[in-house]
């Protein structure tokens, strides 16, 4: 319980962050409590529900299971980074809004970051609906029955593929 504290350097949504943190603290705690990025949510804290999903060097990770110090030297993206510079919803968020993807939306940041990492994959054609379902199966939603979330990601994929091919 005595604090063993260590330096931590990472970029979060493009900003360089230098902190000294207790080794037992998770990445999610640092994001929420120390950096005030409360868009990242904690819903199970044992790595099942995916609400805490953020991107670490472009890959989706569970920030509740990851010690903050494990992210040292990494580049973190959170849901807050998906908005446009003027604060309006970004393309992925807008596609989800257009699809009425969420209800209480507590799980939304995790789904958005999982989808964000999926869309960032360098592939010629977008994932199919079945592949989207599989990719999203690490995120739990209790409100929607998932159909609207799958619709939203599919809409974002379609827009992205159209843009790439344009």
């Amino acid at each position, binding site marked *: 319980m005595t604090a063993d504290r260590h330096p931590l350097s990472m970029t979060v949504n493009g900003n360089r962050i230098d902190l000294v943190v207790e080794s037992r603290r998770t990445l999610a705690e640092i994001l929420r409590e120390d950096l005030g990025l409360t868009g990242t949510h904690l819903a199970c804290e044992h790595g099942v529900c995916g609400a805490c999903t953020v991107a670490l060097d472009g890959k989706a990770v569970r920030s509740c299971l990851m010690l903050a110090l494990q992210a040292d030297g990494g580049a973190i993206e959170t849901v807050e980074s998906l908005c446009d510079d003027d604060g309006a919803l970004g393309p992925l968020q807008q596609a989800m809004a257009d699809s009425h993807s969420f209800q209480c939306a507590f799980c939304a*940041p995790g789904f958005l970051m999982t989808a964000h990492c999926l869309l960032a994959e360098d592939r010629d054609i977008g994932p199919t609906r079945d592949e989207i379902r599989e990719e999203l199966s690490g995120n739990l939603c209790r409100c929607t029955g998932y159909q*609207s979330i*799958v619709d939203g990601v599919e809409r974002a994929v379609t827009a992205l593929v159209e843009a790439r091919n344009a």
Partner: protein
Amino acid sequence: MRESLMGKYVGARVNRVEDKRLLAGAGRYIDDVSVPDMLHAAFLRSPYPHAEIGSIDLTAAQALPGVHLILTGEDLKSRTYPFFGTLNFPRFYQPTFWALAVDRVRHVGDPVAIVVADSRRLAEDACELIEVDYEPLPGIATVEQALDADRAVVWPKSKTNLHYQASERFGDVDAAFAAAERVIVETFDQHRHSNQPMEARGIVAEVDPSSGEMTIHASTQSAHMVKWCIALLTGRRPLRRVVRQMISQRDHTKAIFKGMADYLKATPAMVAALKEMAPVMLKQNVTNVERTKAMNGAFVGLMGRDPKTLPAALAGDVGGAFGAKTAVHREDVAVCAAALELGRSVKWIEDRNEHLTVGSQAREESVDLAVAVRHDGTILGMRARLTIDSGAYPGFPYGGAVIAARLARTMFPGPYRLPALEFHSRIITSNKATYLPYRGPWEIETFVRERMLDVVARQLGLSRAEIRRRNLIGDDELPATMVTGPALDVRMSARRVFEKAMDVTGADDWEKTRAEAFAAGRRIGMGFATYIEAAPGPPGYMDNVGPGFSAMVDREPINAVLEADGTVTLHTQQVTHGQSHETTLAQLAADQLGVPMEVIRISYGNTRTAPFGLVGTAGSRAATFASGAVLLATKGLRDRIVDLAADLLEAAPSDIVVEDGRIHVAGTPSIAVTLADVAHAAREKGDEARGAARGDEAIRVSELFDGGAGGWSGATHVCFVEIDLDTGLVKIPRYVVVEDCGEIINPAVVDGQIRGGVAQGIGAVLYEKSTYDDQGQFQAGTFMDYLIPTAMEIPDIEIHHVETPSDVFANYRGVGEGGAIGAPAALCNAIEDALSDLGVRITEQHLPPARILELAGVIPTLSPSR
């Protein structure tokens, strides 16, 4: 007369207002609340289902640097009032208990101590250092154990674990059974499972260090409920100080009594209810003295309280609830007591293990059923006995189990002709977590009735559609009255909905399809379920729960305000938590006022500004109640706006047109005034034009809506399955819902509510169970044990709408609960159908792969059915 909204929003798939905030990660859920100088709480909880508490040693925990306060149950006796039963029914025992366990723990997770420290981490560290001596007692984990006279009682003062009994007869039951050509008997079980919103519970008790005043930030379905329950149970002072305060604020005390007298004078239904209930209340007061003392102490304490010290409650964004957040929980009271003790703000955020263990469990019910039928499938009568395992501590302000029992009894006939019903209810207490309401808390009636109809059909050699057609109430028989009391008005469309579902799915040709598939080695099945849902039900529906309930809850207040800047604010007592009220209520208001939606703001969740209502958002009531209230208030506001604009434009009010927020004389749209102009004019003109406007407001219109004609929602679900008997896996290739919820405000919102409910019903059947062993030890404390279905398990759900035209005012009805009501029955019926050649009869609701294989005889049966 119908308010015909011809605007552009109602009925359209309008994008959600909420999403601009929530999808940006800018929501403000309970764990996002941070106030200055805030401390953090954690609870030490019982590892035993049932035990006497010996000594509690706090020494090491208190010595940990950063720990500010530790309270145990004993400490709360002087600081809080105990929880007590607020309901009155004959043969009903409601225990009295404290926010933290005193002397005895009654379920795994029962809170024993609260630790407040600089951080949650430290508070949890300190919990580890508390030494509690427990003397374990045998646990009560099943109904059989609860009713075994040789076993311990959970609440010694009641002398029995049977806490509620009721027997009622509707119609001539004996004649029905005497006339029966067949009597078919079966028992159906439903397992304990859980709401599990993605956001668990939590509270921030914010204390102003200078004034000592408390603001409660809560994740709740009703802010006013939180405020008044916390006010009632916290801030305990010695009786002499309470009395001294009552005397010193004589005028306030008199005003309370006058207020009660005025309320009763204005509410004759409540007076009649109280008269009816008086003997029951008196008997309970005499037989359960502990409760009487607790209740009197708390209410006298509340009256003898300086009203300036009453807390306020604030709900921000709420991360789901499904009924779990209709209660004020024991932890809430402990946190508030700790904050008041310290004079500092305290935050508690429940973790998932806690939420699974104690936060919300529901649905543990069984029904013994006998059905009297003719050979042609005509149902003559039923005898049913419902048993509910309500766990140890009832919820507050009311226990969910007795409400569920009352509603299940009322709804048991569903949309069918049922001339006679004998209905027995019993509620037992056990060493399990609190039973709370869960989405369609009376759902057992649909599960049992729809399951039984399939059983009866097979026994009589009828098709499953045929037995329903023979008994469903058709349009030509409406209006009608259910044998249990509620009226079915001409909009009750269950028969039409059912026929459409049969058409859409080709269900009448199913036997052939299935036979072909079986022949080809594919094990497929189809099942359906038909139900109606009181959303909100006919006028007076809630009186079926208990006398006076309708008078208490059938009032939806609303304030519509034209602000000085020309925007419009609607203050509602609803606390939206996923239902998208910021969008749907704004759609209604915008169309009624003739303004763009961006002009409307829905204000909710703050007891300082929201009109008073204890219900909040629950019971699928908002679609009718909140919508009707919005229509009434915005109509009143529009009239005032039009009058003022007519003055400004020097025209007659009847010639005024409001379009897209511009107000002009018909035919001359180029000369227009804005809402800001009207607001300015109202403020210039003064009181007469402004209504009840306060401060900077330009105009305020307040309305109270009583629900009008109310009405029924309803649906038929058709579920198709394919079962693999190598693995026991059940796949759902197609799921169809045909439903009628009246006029639709926003189709995307309606469809989302239905799909979410169906997903929870599928989860209940195939995955989810709040498992206890036969000693009462809890075994599903993580999401690896309690399985929430993912995007891989829930299929796309096909929805068809039936709308019954009507002139009824606010012909919008609730749709939040129905999905979860219909799905378990439809899915279980489909599974039985797929196993029909094996002679399998499904009498339980939890059917994970291992159970499917047991039922199919692929593996030997190891586990008992529950």
